[in-house]
């Protein structure tokens, strides 16, 4: 999967971000090939979420470049990156809590169905928005909960809805920020199955603490420590990497929790 022949879908080139004296991203270099599931792991405070924030456009880097499909997107605002096919899910669930699940996803569909300066027709009955929304909900297993107000859904369902919304924007690439955070083992297993299915036709950059899930899903893994990528490689290579073991995984095995 990690062929260097084709141009990577996402290239991160010496990205740096400082918050005062704290270096959150330190010359981060990372490529994500089209079609691969690339996982980023690292201890708490390694700068994973800051990196995601820079990729989506919510945080401006101090230096470096981000290139998506050959186009420099470093200076583009968040909404334009989303329009280019970069979708994200949030580590801390960020939904429209007072809307129904269906309305949440339909809004994501609408974001990519041309401009929204349409003032008259009832958007809640537009099949053009509702059908894809329903398909996305069905894909993550939330079809039966479509009409529920989001505030009434469970935590696990919120995480599923996060993914449905990202999917509804019909992205080229998914940035998933800890999709399994706070999930029980059963919900996690379901999420792993869902991600395995999604990786069939999507490029995914996955930030996750659940090592079991990461090693089961990832084609390649990058290890971030103190804002710096200390290693990139296949799960086997990362498991065998001495530096990674010392810095992060602990010496016994690769299955421990950070």
């Amino acid at each position, binding site marked *: 999967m990690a062929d260097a022949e084709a141009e990577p879908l996402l290239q991160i080139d010496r990205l740096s971000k400082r918050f005062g004296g704290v270096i959150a991203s330190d010359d981060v270099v990372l490529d994500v090939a089209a079609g691969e599931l690339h996982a980023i792991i690292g201890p708490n405070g390694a700068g994973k979420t800051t990196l995601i924030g820079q990729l*989506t*456009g*919510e945080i401006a880097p101090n230096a470096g470049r981000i290139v998506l499909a050959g186009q420099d997107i470093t200076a583009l*605002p*968040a*909404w*334009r990156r*989303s*329009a280019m096919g970069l*979708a*994200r899910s*949030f580590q801390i669930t*960020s*939904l*429209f*809590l*007072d*809307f129904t699940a269906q*309305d949440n996803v*339909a*809004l*994501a569909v*609408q*974001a*990519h169905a041309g401009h*929204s*300066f*349409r*003032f*008259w*027709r*009832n*958007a*809640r009955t*537009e099949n053009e*928005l509702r059908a894809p929304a329903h398909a996305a909900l069905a894909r993550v297993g939330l079809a039966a909960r479509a009409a529920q107000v989001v505030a009434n859904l469970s935590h696990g369902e919120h995480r599923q809805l996060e993914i449905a*919304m990202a999917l*509804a*924007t019909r992205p080229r690439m998914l940035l998933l920020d800890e999709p399994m955070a706070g999930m029980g083992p059963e919900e996690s297993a379901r999420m792993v199955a869902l991600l395995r299915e999604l990786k069939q036709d999507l490029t995914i950059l996955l930030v996750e603490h659940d090592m079991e899930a990461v090693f089961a899903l990832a084609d390649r893994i990058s290890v971030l420590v103190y804002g710096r990528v200390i290693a990139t490689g296949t799960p086997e290579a990362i498991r065998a990497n001495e530096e990674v073991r010392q810095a992060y995984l602990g010496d016994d095995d690769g299955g421990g929790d950070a």
Partner: protein
Amino acid sequence: MIAALTPRTIAVAVVIAMLALVPVYAHLVGNLFVLSLFTRIVILAIAAVSLNLIMGFGGMVSFGHAAYIGIGGYVVGILAHEGVRSGFVQWPLAILLSAIFALGIGALSLRTRGVYFIMITLAFAQMIYYVAVALDRYGGDDGLTIYRRSQFAGLVDLANKTVFYYVCLALLLGCVYLVWRLVNSRFGLVIQGSRSNDRRMNAIGFPTFRYRLTAFVIAGAICGLSGALLANHTDFISPAMMHWTRSGDLIVMAVLGGMGSVFGPVLGALALLLLEEALPSVIGLFAVLFTGKDMATAREYWQLILGPMLLLIVLFARGGIDGILAGLRRG
């Protein structure tokens, strides 16, 4: 969509029917003050409905919305003073100029959030207020009398108080319908999404600023229309019509009536302005009952009753009057 017969829709229908019958009642009992009061209520309800588009649905708490009442009113007053009496010129210009001001004010203030947004909209409204005070040619602080109401080529005679009332009522219902269509359209879902979670809106690909600004301009334009109506109603313009306390009144109307619904602010305007009329008499009555004297000064303290009422609504009935009506079905 056909709404079911809930207490809420019944209440809306009853209120509209009662509003439609106000002139009949006024003529039957020969009390033209009632007609004048309800004309004022209907006009300010238009302003409150427009405010609720941005405040209730868009989460933009504008504390300077009365400025557009002033702009709309001054366009009518100044044009009348300069000899342009056609409503076909006055009213569209009132709406247009309000929209232009809203565009400028919104473009700057929508870059801020929360308290800063409230303060910056108030600041702009105060600027416009003082500009009006400084307009010596048009009466300055004292205001300006309008000797003839807007002329519509003999089609409608606004000097006839009943006709004028029905024109205002028709425009109110038109505005309610317009806002109702707006909030349920794609555009409306975007501004509601932006109220709910603007960060997420950006993440899924919406440039929300331009939608919020558009809503702000539409609200300003509608409010400008209510200003044009108010100038015609009072036959007078003065800076007082856009005093900052009126912006506060409009917020109170929306909160009292219910920000979650398009019709709520109409109920709020009715409630607030009727209480404003009734409470002084009630207090006066109590003063006579308990002291045996007619204490005119006691009447001035009617807000002592209104204040706690508002407090109770905010604390226990978040959805305002509309929320209470909506809750009846379940309760």
